[in-house]
């Protein structure tokens, strides 16, 4: 394919005009090649679209692009670590949430690319900023995000005339009814990311936090934490079943898909997969706006950004790829549309995206009045804060409290563990 494009460039006047117009130097015998490692998108169609865009990129610029996929849960981190350790590997890497903070010294400064995108699309949303803007420099270009949202069985709610909850307290009220109906609420309390993704918004909504904005002061020991724990205790007792203590990240999806859970907290993947597999529960599933607490409406967001390793010899070509994928409105839109509504744009002006209108059930993803954060908010995502997250201290604190440890002791334990980590 590369030789065709080279010939195309060099032999046709259109190609020459193209070169003169865009200033892109033709590949002079030396083909530029870049490689990109990204996660295997939960929507396979999105990966196909990415490959397609990649091929068009090669045709238009002459830069050969290889895209590799990897599972994002454990393997992706191992791969990043190996590439940094060997100082060899892919040129571009897609990073989940605030991983750019861990690899700050190894990532190229991409502030220029982000500035261009922000000029076109408006500022990057706050969660994307928190994730990829490290110590004043953009270390990765925000690409899209998948936020959490409330997913519930609308049909069951209607049948029982239950009010759609608006606060976490409302959830408790309807949850009791749901459990009596045999469709309990499903919020995991286990050593998995979904547990953190729910525990954090609950804590934030009550006004609490793990580590303060300064990144040093541990603030878990607060009335908000007590309220969070008490809320979880009563939820487990009256609205959920003990199985949530064993759940993995896929369990809540599966629970609602096969008709058990009446309410879960998850990105839209649960609904989309049900729809694609034509499960019986599909029609009954819908989403509603994220829940609020006394301290506002907070929600977990998972932004993903694209970084360039410093050891890459093709930083410029890599930036071109990012510009090609995200810089042109049509291409960016095309890319977003292929991911159903799981991947949404992270720039201000693109928030009300057409993809949200492809299915009325995506309406809640607009998230009006919702503040989106990444794990560890409001502390900057230093490696210490990330170790607190990766050690599942927050869900373990809750797990301890709901399985017999006193609230006071559970909080004290969490505080102690967090302090030890922050102390270094």
């Amino acid at each position: 394919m590369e030789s065709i494009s080279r010939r195309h460039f060099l032999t046709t006047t259109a190609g020459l005009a193209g070169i003169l117009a865009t200033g892109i130097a033709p590949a002079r015998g030396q083909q530029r090649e870049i490689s990109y490692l990204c996660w295997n998108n939960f929507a396979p169609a999105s990966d196909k679209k990415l490959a397609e865009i990649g091929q068009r990129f090669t045709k238009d610029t002459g830069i050969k692009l290889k895209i590799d996929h990897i599972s994002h849960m454990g393997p992706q981190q191992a791969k990043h670590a190996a590439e940094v350790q060997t100082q060899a590997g892919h040129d571009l890497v897609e990073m989940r949430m605030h991983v750019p903070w861990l690899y700050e010294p190894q990532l190229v400064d991409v502030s220029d690319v982000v500035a261009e995108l922000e000029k076109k699309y408006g500022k990057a949303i706050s969660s994307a900023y928190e994730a990829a803007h490290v110590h004043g420099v953009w270390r990765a270009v925000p690409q899209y995000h998948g936020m959490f949202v409330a997913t519930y069985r609308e049909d069951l709610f209607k049948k029982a005339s239950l009010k759609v909850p608006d606060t976490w307290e409302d959830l408790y009220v309807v949850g009791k009814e749901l459990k009596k109906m045999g469709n309990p609420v499903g919020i995991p309390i286990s050593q998995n990311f979904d547990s953190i993704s729910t525990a954090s918004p609950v804590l934030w909504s009550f006004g609490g936090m793990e580590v303060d904005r300064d990144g040093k002061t541990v603030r878990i020991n607060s009335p908000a934490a007590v309220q969070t724990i008490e809320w979880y205790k009563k939820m487990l007792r009256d609205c959920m079943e003990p199985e949530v203590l064993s759940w993995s990240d896929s369990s809540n999806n599966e629970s609602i898909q096969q008709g058990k859970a009446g309410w879960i907290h998850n990105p839209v993947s649960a609904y989309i997969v049900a729809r694609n597999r034509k499960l019986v529960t599909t029609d009954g599933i819908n989403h509603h706006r994220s829940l609020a607490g006394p301290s506002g409406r907070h929600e977990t967001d998972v932004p993903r950004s694209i970084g360039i390793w410093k050891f890459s010899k093709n930083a410029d070509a890599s930036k071109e790829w990012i510009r090609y994928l995200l810089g042109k409105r049509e291409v960016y839109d095309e890319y977003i549309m292929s991911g159903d509504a799981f991947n949404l744009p992270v720039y201000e002006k693109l928030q009300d995206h057409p993809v949200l209108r492809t299915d009325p059930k995506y309406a809640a993803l607009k998230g009006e009045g919702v503040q989106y954060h990444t794990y560890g908010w409001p502390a900057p995502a230093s490696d210490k804060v990330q170790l607190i997250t990766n050690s599942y201290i927050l869900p373990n604190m809750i797990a301890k409290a709901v399985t017999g440890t006193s609230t006071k002791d559970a909080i004290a334990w969490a505080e102690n563990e967090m302090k030890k980590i922050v102390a270094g």
Partner: protein
Amino acid sequence: MAVRADEINVPRGRPRGRARLSGWLDREAILGPAFVTPALLLLLLLVAYPFVMALYFSLSNAFIGRPSQFIGITNFVKLWDSDAFRQTFQNSFVFTGIAVVFKVVLGICLALLLNEQLWFKRMIRGAVLLPWVIPTALSTLGWWWMFNSLYSVVNWTGMATGLMDPPGPNWLGQKYYAMAAVIIVNVWRGLPFFAITILAGLVAIPKELYEAAEADGANANARFWHITLPLLKPVLAVVVLFSTIFTFSDFNIVYILTHGGPINSTHLFATLSRMVGIDTGRIGEGAAISLYLFPLLVFVVWAQLRFVRKQAF
């Protein structure tokens, strides 16, 4: 399959040019090292060197992609402060101890049974080997599906047969059940290795010994304890050695089934090391976790090998 020496076609009168080289190669002092050198080189380059690097990591504040400084045994000392690590330490001994004991006992039983005249001998042996052959990453996922709280076939079967009350134990969500679950999967996977290796040891015990003992009036029990078991000791020693090492450094089962939970109650050295070292970038601490037991394991290996060499070699 014995071959008689005079049946071998040995060329006589080798060409003179090669005589010196062949003669040279025939000396043990040359050929011996020559034969072990490839393996030695492989292990030196691909194990020893990375190991030294890993050792350096553990003695430094290495963080992924950042320059590191030597800090001595600080990592090892600090680890003991961490609740997760202390729990991991305990878990590892519990996990390995129980799993290996089960594998030894069940392995001996299974080997004894397989040693008999059986119908469908080949099929039975094949069936017994199956758990060991299924790719680990996928068989562990299969077990996750089996313990899955929503569709757990284990619980369903237990309730259907009346052994369990609904809804059945929360396998992966309760402290001791989770440890039991990971031990069960480890035993399931490792039992074939034990059984077949011990079987090999059993097959080698001369029948005459048993016949003599029986003639002397020893019953089955006595024959087992006084003939079988002692003669199996060398096999058992080495198998237990290998299995202990493999079980201690097990990663996959805990990672997939429980991620170390609930509340760190199933974390093992390998999974904790992965979480701290790779997921968070603190490879110095991660290396220290992985290497914490190295001195102990070296001692165990040395002791076992001395015992085995006395007995076997």
